[in-house]
């Protein structure tokens, strides 16, 4: 991975539009300025890891991408579509962007299979049988096809998070957002989820992951973004960011999470 990845699209399609473009995005919660001029280009097929202390705006940034939060200033363009108040644009973006949450957010009243087929049937208008075949394919890929008829409450945290990944993939998204996917998991379950994400990265999926898993970042990230107090402080390859931090804020952050590991 070289620096050339930093601002241009993938080498194979240098003039392809970026998968995600954030241009001077600002957001306030009440009077609190939580995102300050956040600008980020993510190329098609690129894997970006966002890290930073809690309250730094990492989650808010990626939640703005599928408009779970609305930004108040700046531009966000996803897959060539600009996010605006236009509901059709929002629908189109949400169909192309999958999201995995820290707390899984599986639907407790639906079986694992139904969790996965719900959106393909109601949003993609896919016949049920086709949706179920697709769901089984992805459940197999995250290695839990045998749980299909169970309910989320019967599964372990790691299994639930893998179902959540399969559920998002069933919409065949072009982009996947991960919001601290392993933070709510016991240590022995973190690996199974990270392995699934590594497998996904190998398929060439465009991914933005908010995570503190340094090993994962080193293994799959094309770029690591460090955020603090609502702004992007440093950005570069994992080697640049982790081995050669430029700012005191990043040095402090790295020393803190390294002590924790």
């Amino acid at each position, binding site marked *: 991975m070289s620096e050339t990845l930093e601002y241009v699209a993938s080498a194979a399609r240098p003039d392809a539009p970026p998968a995600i473009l954030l241009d001077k995005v600002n957001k306030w919660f009440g009077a609190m300025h939580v995102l300050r001029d956040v600008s980020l280009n993510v190329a098609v097929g690129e894997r970006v890891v966002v890290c930073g202390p809690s309250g730094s705006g990492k989650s808010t940034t990626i939640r703005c991408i599928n408009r779970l939060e609305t930004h108040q200033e700046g531009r966000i363009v996803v897959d060539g579509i600009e996010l605006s108040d236009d509901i059709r644009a929002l629908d189109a973006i949400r169909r192309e962007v999958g999201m995995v949450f820290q707390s899984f*957010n599986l639907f407790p009243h639906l079986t694992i299979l139904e969790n996965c087929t*719900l959106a393909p049937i109601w949003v993609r208008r896919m*016949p049920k049988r086709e949706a179920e075949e697709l769901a089984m394919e992805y459940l197999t890929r995250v290695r839990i096809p045998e749980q299909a008829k169970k309910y989320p409450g019967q599964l372990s945290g790691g299994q639930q998070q893998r179902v959540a990944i399969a559920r998002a993939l069933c919409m065949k998204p072009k982009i996947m957002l991960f919001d601290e996917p392993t933070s709510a998991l016991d240590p022995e379950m973190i690996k199974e989820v990270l392995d699934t994400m590594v497998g996904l990265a190998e398929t060439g999926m465009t991914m933005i992951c908010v995570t503190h898993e340094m090993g994962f970042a080193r293994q799959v990230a094309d770029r690591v973004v460090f955020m603090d107090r609502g702004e992007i402080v440093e950005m570069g390859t994992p080697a640049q960011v982790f081995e050669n931090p430029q700012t005191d804020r990043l040095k402090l952050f790295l020393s803190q999470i390294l002590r924790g590991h």
Partner: protein
Amino acid sequence: MSQTTIDPRLMRAPPKRKLRLSWADERIRGVVWQVLVVGIVGTIVWWLWSNTVHNLEVRKIATGFGFLTREAGLPVAESVIEYSPTDTYLRALTVGLLNTLKVAVVGIVLSTILGTVIGIARLSRNWLVAKLSAIYVEVIRDLPLLLQLLFWYTILQSLPGPRQAMQPVPGVFLSNRGLKLPWLDWQDAHSLALLALLLGAVVTWFYRRQALAKRILDGQPRRIWPVALGAMGALPVLVWAALGAPWTADWPELRGFNFRGGVTVSPEFFALLLGLVLYTAGFIAEIVRAGILAVPQGQWEAAQALGLHPGQVLRQIVLPQALRVIIPPMTSQYLNITKNSSLAVAIGYQDIVSIANTTLNQTGQAIEGIAIIMLVYLTISLSISLFMNWYNARIALVER
């Protein structure tokens, strides 16, 4: 994960517990306590019963329900069915029962609608709407229902008399005699058209079910409104037109001191309904709010992130989870409306309690009168409970 062979150690039956005749054995204690409680309750019931029978004998009061077939001679102001004072007590009580059912059923429907609207409004992001709903709930819940009923009744009583009646729309009169509305000269054509509408509703319901089932199978959405319009709009109109399209109406007219013709919503019924609906809606609003809040925000977010529209999120994700929190306390509120309707006595609406009271005053059959009231409320309440439990079981969620 399916295992075909089972470890024989897992097949061992649990050991039999030996019954020990000792006060320290919890099963012995359980049996002794239960026998004691049943014995005490039985004794109290027997004592009350024998006392009553003895007192009735001493006072030479005849017991039994023979009085029901005697002429009542009691006037009833409003009735769903034909009634005159020369009818029997049984018919008078039936009129009272129907009046109770009328106010209870209309009250349950209206308070559910109003309560749901206010409950959702209190969750609104609009500051004014949310605050107004909150104030409504807090005020209405804190005032006794009886006071509210008297308040509404007093307001309706202080309306002008029939001669000075307010006439908001031609043919509609509002006075201290109630609300007078024009009504159709009811004919068979109307009954049949109404029947056609019901049939149309059933057809639409089945069609909608089919359409949704098919949509899940092949993914293609189907239009439901053309069928709904045809079955529930065109069909009744056709039936009505085929039978000569009668449309003459019965208009209320002032004759002497009161109105003749049309239909009447009496001030007593209106005050009772208004009081019950406004009061109960305050409680239902809180139940609905609690039910929606019981569904975590993450469920909304996950469903929206998958591309579901707000309506789909509500229908597929939020409502199934909210309803199981809402239904059980809602049942209590429906029972409350039904039982609170007995406060009708205070404002002169002749419900079952009012008529049974008059009956027992006139006949002296107090025990039978009270028994009838209790039987009526028990039957209505149990019916509501059974229906709601059935509905609750139908929507119950399996999660494990």
